[in-house]
Each structure stands twice: as structure tokens, then as C-alpha cells.
């Protein structure tokens, strides 16, 4: 084999045609008045972006999506970091391997189906309702379905394994001798946590946080299934432009705004992410 070109060209041509050219094309479409197909009249314009600025509705929804991303990411860190620690530092041998696979497994199973399974659990008259009423002596109605919290629960369930996985990798690499040295020098448990464990696991946890935040901000299927009317977010509005309203240039502009936000988050996290590799 002489050069790298014959090996690399097929894969990268494919990626160019299926990902990079479409993304560039979308940038172009966000700047036109109508899709330039079939002889339709079109002009270059900034109207689609002006529309985003003119109607506070879009900015509010983008904010709502960012807020959702922050809450879901926070909950994932809160739940996932202790799990990663327990898996990485206190459980040994075959058990650790088995538990680790158990944590990762749902993540690689069908995401849509997992979100749907919450619809069954959360609905009024569903299992959660039934269980709460079986325990409490008085009658309560538990119907979380079609609420903001249902969306949060579904998304945390979907993305929690990311944080556990990346946190686990970082925490496993912490040198036990550092902790022992600190302890023998009289450091308290809390001091060890704040001065050694957290700083050293931060890159892994930050990587996990980015991996959660980015897809949550762009989610539309989870809010649609679990949120009902409470499930309108930036992602669902983008989807609407393509599948219901058929205002593709506006959809392209909104998508590009979302992409800019995502890239900004990735760029801000890049120094920490690089450290984690």
C-alpha cells in the first residue's frame, strides 16, 4: 500500500457527502428566502435570522432548552458521580465488571423505547400511581405524564450512563497513594474530597456533562413523547419547521443558531476535554 489516500478517501468522502456538505448547505439555506429547487424564485436574505430576533418566542424557547439542559446535566452529575466513585473505588473484581456492564447496557439499547417505557410508568393509573397508593393510606393521584418533570426524568434516564462512564474512567485513574499520603498528613475526609478527588475527576465529569448537555439542548423526541403540551422546546420548534410548517429556511436558521450554541459549549469545554484524554 503506497499512500494513505486509497484507505482514507472512501470513508472521508462519505462523511463529506453525508455530514459536512449537508451542514454547509444548511448554512446556505438559512440565508435564502425560499428553497432554490424547481425554479422557485429566491434571494439571499437575513430575514430568517431577523425572524428569530423579532419574535421573543424563539429566544425564550432556546432559553428553556438551555435551562432543561442545565437541570438534566446537574441531576446526571449529582446521581452519576457517586455511582462512578463506588464502581471505580470501592467495588472490586467480577462484581465491578458485572455492575459496570449493567450501568452501560441500557445506554446502548434503543433510546426511543426507553423513553416510551417511562410513559407507561408515569401515566395516571400507571405503575407509579398504583405503587404510591399501595403504600399511602389516603388516596392521591400521581400523574406526572405530560409535564416538565416527565421530560426531565426521561432525559436523565437517557443520558445518566454517559456521566457514570466518563466519571468512572477518570476516578479509576486516581493514584491511591495520593489519597493515602494526604490521609497520613492528617487531611480530613472532606479535604481529601475537595482537594484531591474532585480536581482529579473533574475532566472526566466535565466530559460527561458536555456529552449530556449537548444532545439534551437539541432533543425533540423525548419532550414530544413525555411532555405533551408542556413539551415545547427549541428542538421541537425546529422539527416543526421541517415536518409540519414546511418553512425550511427558517428551520435551517434555527438549526444553525442551535449549532452555534452547541459549538460554543464544545469550544468552552475543549481545554478540559483535552485534559481528559
Amino acid at each position, binding site marked *: 500500500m503506497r499512500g494513505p489516500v486509497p484507505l482514507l478517501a472512501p470513508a472521508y468522502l462519505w462523511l463529506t457527502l453525508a455530514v459536512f456538505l449537508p451542514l454547509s448547505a444548511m448554512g446556505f439555506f438559512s440565508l435564502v428566502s425560499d428553497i432554490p429547487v424547481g425554479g422557485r424564485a429566491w434571494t439571499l436574505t437575513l430575514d430568517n435570522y431577523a425572524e428569530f430576533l423579532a419574535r421573543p418566542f424563539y429566544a425564550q424557547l432556546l432559553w428553556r432548552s438551555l435551562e432543561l439542559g442545565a437541570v438534566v446535566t446537574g441531576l446526571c452529575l449529582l446521581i452519576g458521580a457517586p455511582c462512578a466513585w463506588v464502581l471505580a473505588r470501592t467495588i472490586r473484581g467480577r462484581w465491578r465488571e458485572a455492575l459496570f456492564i449493567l450501568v452501560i447496557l441500557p445506554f446502548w439499547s*434503543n433510546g426511543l423505547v426507553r423513553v416510551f417505557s417511562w410513559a407507561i410508568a408515569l401515566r395516571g393509573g400507571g405503575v407509579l400511581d398504583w405503587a404510591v397508593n399501595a403504600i399511602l393510606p389516603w388516596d392521591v393521584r400521581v400523574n406526572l405524564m405530560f409535564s416538565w418533570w416527565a421530560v426531565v426524568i426521561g432525559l436523565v434516564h437517557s443520558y445518566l450512563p454517559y456521566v457514570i462512564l466518563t466519571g468512572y474512567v477518570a476516578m479509576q485513574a486516581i493514584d491511591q497513594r495520593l489519597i493515602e499520603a494526604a490521609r497520613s498528613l492528617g487531611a480530613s475526609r472532606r479535604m481529601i474530597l475537595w482537594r484531591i478527588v474532585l480536581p482529579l475527576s473533574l475532566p472526566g465529569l466535565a466530559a460527561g456533562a458536555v456529552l449530556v448537555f449537548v444532545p439534551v439542548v437539541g432533543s425533540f423526541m423525548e419532550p414530544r413523547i413525555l411532555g405533551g403540551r408542556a413539551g415545547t422546546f427549541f428542538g421541537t420548534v425546529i422539527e416543526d419547521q421541517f415536518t409540519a410548517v414546511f418553512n425550511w429556511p427558517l428551520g435551517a436558521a434555527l438549526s444553525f443558531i442551535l449549532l452555534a450554541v452547541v459549538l460554543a459549549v464544545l469550544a468552552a469545554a475543549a481545554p478540559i476535554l483535552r485534559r481528559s484524554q
Partner: protein
Amino acid sequence: MTAVLNAIGRGWLILTLAFLYLPILVMAAMSFNASPFYRLPVEFSTRWYAALMGNAALKQAAWNSVWIALVTTAIATALGTAAAIGLHRHRFPGRALLQAALYPPIAIPWLITGTAMLVFFYFLGIPRGSPAVVVGHVALAIPYVVIVVGARLKGFDPALEEAARSLGARPWQVAAWVTLPYLAPAVIAAALFAFAVSFDQFVISYFLAAPGDTTLPVEIYAAIRKGFTPEVNAVSTIVIGLSMALMLLVARLARFGEVR
């Protein structure tokens, strides 16, 4: 004190596992519930699985999902493995850029990638349908294949290939008898990965598939939006069981790849 903390930690992990698995178990239990209104306690029945057999739309979608995943696996594994070898073996200007280019398909939300593909393919005159879905799935799967195979290549001793060559092996013989057998576990794991990426993919298929002739996740989504029925539970239980079994297999093979 340490023992107490450890016990709390383990309890936390067990609660988290319960959170991860309970809804799935509930769904599986409900798929065997005779009552169409999810009445509790569960009265065992397989009527919803029987009903699946008569659902032509779901069967067609399941068949589409399987063949699309198989075609995606074949193409993505071949192209991705070649690219991983190319990236590993050669040092050239722009190599770091090519490696970085693997991440956007993974990191950018599928909503953005999916709508971009929809618009671009429409512009090119490629209609919505299974071929377009395959093009999209392969693009998503290639980075995973390159990363998985590339990780295995890091431990590859180039002296093995040199030895084969100096003993008179032709390039194809080196590839077939030295390089590929070494890579086999990673290539198989990557292929299973590619299959799972395609089989479970919803967003890209949702935007690229032709309405009425689509993949299983898209069909399930349509059924959920219409108002969910126990039939959806049954097919979802089958899908999640299959994909979990597949990933267990990947986990075994990936570890097999590390140990050797």
C-alpha cells in the same frame, strides 16, 4: 465510618440501577398484561405478541430496520476499518484534522445533522427513502468503527508485517494473514456497534425515511403519537431485549480485544 459510607454508596448505586431498569421492566410486564388499559395486577397473556404477527406495517418496518442495519454494517465496517488503518499507518499533514473530523457526526445533535441531510438530499434530488437512510446511518457509524478499530491498532507491532513481507508475502497476503486476523476482534466489535447504531437510530431515519415505508423506531414513534397501545409495549420489549443482547455480545468481544 468507612464501612457506613461504603454501604451508603452501594445503596446509591443499587437505587440508580433500579431507576435505570424499572421502567423497562414495567414495560415488559405490561406487554404481557391482558388488559388493554394496563389494569393492575397483571393478568398474564401473550395476546399482544400474537397481535403483532398480524400488524403488517410493524412487520414491514422491522424488516426495513434489519436490512438497513445489515447494509450499514457492511459499508461502515469496510470503510471505517480502512480509514483506521490509513490513519494509524501514515503520518501526513492534515492527519490531526481528519481525526478531529470524526467527532462532529457523534457530537452534533442528530436533530441538526438529520435536518441538514433532509434539506441537502432534497436539494440534490435524492428522494426520502431507505437508500437515503442508509447514507445517513453509514455516516453516523463510520466514526465509531474508526475509533474502535483504531484503539486496537495502537497495540499492533509493525514488526509482524515487516517479518511477513521479508519472508516474501505479497501485500494482500500480509493483509489477509497478519493484519486482519490481529484486528478481527475489534472489527467484529465495531461491526456490532455499527449494527446497533443503525438499528436503534431514530432521529436520522425520522427525517430521511419515506412516510409509510420506514424503520421500526420511526413506526413505533408514530404508534406512540397516535395513542399508545399494548402492541407497542410488545414490540418495544422485543426491540430492547434484542439490542441489549447485542451489546452484551459487544462488551464480551471488546474485552476479548483488550486482553489479547
